[in-house]
């Protein structure tokens, strides 16, 4: 351990901790652009300069300098503040200051630092440098060199994280530009991560460009439902429409990254043809009437199976199981959806909660399906045709009616993963919290409440809110690994 003082406060840190990390850990934030915890240290931006041992002639970059025993660090001294202001002025003189039409506005560290540490006025009366604008780095990414501050996070992301070099830096001095390599457009399936790490609006996503101002959107901290990796994301919505997914840093799961497929999947959950009420035999029905019908059809449960989507939360599934078991249904199966995984984040299991379903006793559909009398399908899930062959009745609960809807004796409304509340367990067994990014509107209760209500009075009394079900899942999974619910 190393003991040093930062702004007069004595702190103790592990050997090898940088000044920047030490300061941040003790609530003293140092601004920076080029450093990124998941890309590494470069030391080019000069934003994180601090004063070490009173040396004001030569300030130290706190991102790279390791803490030393007895060091006296100042992060807010007059010399540091002047340097910061000076560096920001250097950034701003050639920056187009087109925040009015820039997609980064509102989540832009250049704006934020300029506001907090910047000069406040401009002493630059010369002509600004001109450079290439609207450069297509790919069919997903657009580059604006005039906004670029050359922190090189984007090039270092590819080099250090993706082990590839689709873009680089050309020329020297003031002419330096991020540039596409001679091999043409970026093809990396994780390329959109450079949009998030770009600290200005130099890199924008063609998909998100000019779509919606960031301050008009609501952001929910949730989990990408696209595969069993469980990438932590922020899902952004405007007036009930999902607008984008962005990765949310979790060092243990996805660091700061997510795949482009997952990121661009948000629109899949903007549904137009919702099931907004229960239906019995194709006719709209009161929910209570429909639920009674389900219990009537299931009877003693003999010959009935449940097939649950693994896009259901653990809480949905526990409520479902509780109802099923109370009604003698013992065949609890879960669906399977796959896609091509890779060696970075993407898992072959294209659903977020298979591990949760299995932990709660749901099993894969057996190869030899016994003859069934009835089937209850919970969620939007592909149903093996063998399950449908002999049944007398089908209960289907899903956000949209889909192909199964017309065949269902009882059709119940359901929520998308972006409307759910509860937890998913990822492929590594990590249970993570899911929060609704959008409200489905009238007539679509939370899925777990449906099954709870179906299960009867005891369940209703035990689980007045999702918190109680989450607690019940803790016990059911026999684990206390309730995730990083941050």
């Amino acid at each position, binding site marked *: 351990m190393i003991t040093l003082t930062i702004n007069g406060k004595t702190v103790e840190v592990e050997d090898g901790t940088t000044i920047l990390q030490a300061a941040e850990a003790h609530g003293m934030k140092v601004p920076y652009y080029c450093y990124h915890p998941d890309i590494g240290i470069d*030391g*080019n*931006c*000069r*934003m994180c*300069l601090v004063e070490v041992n009173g040396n004001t*002639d*030569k*300030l130290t*970059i706190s991102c*790279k300098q390791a803490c030393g025993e007895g060091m006296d660090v100042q992060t807010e001294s007059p010399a540091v503040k*002047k*340097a910061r*202001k*000076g*560096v920001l*002025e*250097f*950034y701003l*003189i*050639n920056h187009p200051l087109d925040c009015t039409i820039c997609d980064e506005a509102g989540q832009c560290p250049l704006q934020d630092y300029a506001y907090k540490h910047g000069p406040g006025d401009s*002493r*630059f009366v*010369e*002509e600004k*440098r001109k450079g290439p604008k609207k450069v297509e780095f790919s069919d997903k990414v657009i580059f604006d060199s005039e906004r670029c*501050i*050359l922190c090189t996070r984007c090039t270092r992301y590819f080099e250090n994280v993706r082990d590839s070099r689709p873009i680089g*830096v050309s*020329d*020297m*001095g*003031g*002419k*330096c530009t991020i540039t596409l390599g001679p091999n043409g457009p970026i093809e990396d399936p994780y390329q959109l991560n450079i949009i998030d790490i770009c600290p200005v609006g130099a890199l924008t996503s063609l998909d998100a460009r000019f779509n919606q101002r960031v301050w008009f959107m609501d952001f929910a901290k949730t989990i990408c439902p696209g595969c069993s990796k469980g990438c932590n994301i922020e899902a952004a919505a405007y007036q009930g429409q999902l607008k984008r997914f962005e990765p949310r840093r979790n060092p243990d799961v996805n660091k700061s990254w997510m795949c482009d497929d997952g990121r661009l999947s948000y629109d899949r959950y903007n549904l137009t043809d919702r099931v907004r009420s229960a239906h019995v035999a194709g006719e709209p029905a009161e929910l209570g009437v429909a639920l009674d019908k389900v219990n009537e059809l299931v009877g003693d449960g003999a010959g009935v199976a449940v097939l649950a989507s693994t896009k259901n939360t653990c809480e949905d599934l526990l409520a479902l199981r509780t109802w099923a078991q109370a009604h003698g249904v013992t065949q609890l199966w879960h669906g399977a959806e796959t896609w091509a995984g890779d060696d970075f984040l993407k898992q072959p299991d294209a659903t977020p909660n298979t591990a949760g379903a299995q932990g709660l006793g749901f099993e894969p559909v057996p190869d030899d399906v016994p003859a069934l009398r009835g089937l209850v399908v919970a969620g939007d899930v592909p149903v093996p045709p063998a399950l449908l062959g002999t049944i007398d009745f089908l209960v289907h609960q899903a956000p949209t009616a889909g192909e199964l809807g017309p065949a269902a004796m009882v059709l119940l409304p359901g929520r998308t993963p972006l409307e759910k509340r509860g937890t998913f367990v990822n492929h590594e067994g990590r249970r993570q919290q899911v929060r609704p990014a959008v409200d489905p509107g009238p007539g679509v209760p939370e899925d777990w409440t449906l099954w709870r209500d179906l299960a009867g009075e005891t369940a209703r009394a035990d689980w007045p809110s999702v918190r109680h079900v989450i607690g019940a899942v803790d016990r059911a999974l026999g684990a206390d690994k309730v995730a990083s619910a941050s």
Partner: protein
Amino acid sequence: MIQENKVLSARFGTPDSCSIETYRRDGGYQTYVETLRSRQPDDIIDEVKRSGLRGRGGAGVSPGMTWSFVPKQTDKPKYLCVNGDESEPGTFKDRQILEFDPHALLEGVGISCFAFGASTCYVYLRCEFAEGIRAVQKAIKEAYEAGFFGKDIAGTGFDLDCYLHIGAGAYICGEETSLLNSIEGVRPYPRNKPPFPAVEGLWGCPTVINNVETITNIPHILKNGAEWHAKLGHADDPGVRLWCVSGHVNKPGVYEFETGFKLQDLIDGPCGGMRDGRKLKAVIPGGSSSKVLLPDEVARVTMDTPGIRALGSSLGSAGIMVFDDRTCMVDAILNLMKFYAHESCGQCTPCREGTPWVVKILQRFVDGRGRPQDMELLLDIAANMEGRTVCALADGACWPLTSIVQKFRHEFEAMIPSAKTSSGRTATAAPTGAA
């Protein structure tokens, strides 16, 4: 009158001075062979330290000190890089060594590598030195053939390879860590220090980077002893140096003097005085990255580190640029700042953005659009660059800039159109005076 003491330049006038035959005839490589056979590495490092030699590239660091920072116990190979990127405006001394006495450099390479255990040396030369490149290339070949490079040199078991590495026109590559990146084949951005190259240099291995003139001094120190060297010139900055004089003097060129002489004596004596009988206006004494001196300062300064530091400037690479009274100092600093803006590598922000900004402001003065507040602005921009960057290029740009703004303020004021100047005087050519 001051007398040249030709140590490094002694052979410059020798016919066929570049050939190994004439070099050996003049005693060349004897010190190398004797050193390899009879001296211990630590003992050589100590000798160089005691000689008081400071590096001749600009920073003035003792090469003996640098060598002593190289780890002794390591499995990694060690490297010497000879810095012959000589690009500091006003400096043209290393080129003389390369063109006229390349074997003297190579002998220094051999001894230096032996001293700190390097097994490979890269001699880094700027590509504009066509003649120097040919001379060094030939000399390396001759030295290999004569057994001074290669395996088991002089039967001592010491192995050393020496290769030429050619740059491509970038001043920044003279910065030692930029030079390493240039050799490694990546964009030659300076590296943040620590780690220092002596510990982690080329490919993460211990590496020393020494200037051409520095290395060429080494055989002389080993041959004549540390005490001999320590007694040359000024006690606190001893030795001989190749002084490059350019600008408005009658006889510009490279002169070899011991440190400690009076700059005025050099200009008036060997340099033949000011050209066309003009008056002296200013001298930039240590390559362009040093602070300008006014005539009264030139009259009293002695050319050694303590003497020049007393006037706030530095000896740098010993490039002495002399300007007469016809020179527009705003023009001169604009020219220099264009140099720094052009040569800024672009890696870090204050230098990449600051140097072109300064050029734009100075250009406004020259175009007749200077403003009274611009002098303060220039000084503040300099303050925001100096000591805030990865390497010293921005510092080197700030020193001539701030000193010229401070010492020739009246020339800037005179270029502000028709308005009153900041000191209330009307803008006309004002009398010269120290700030």
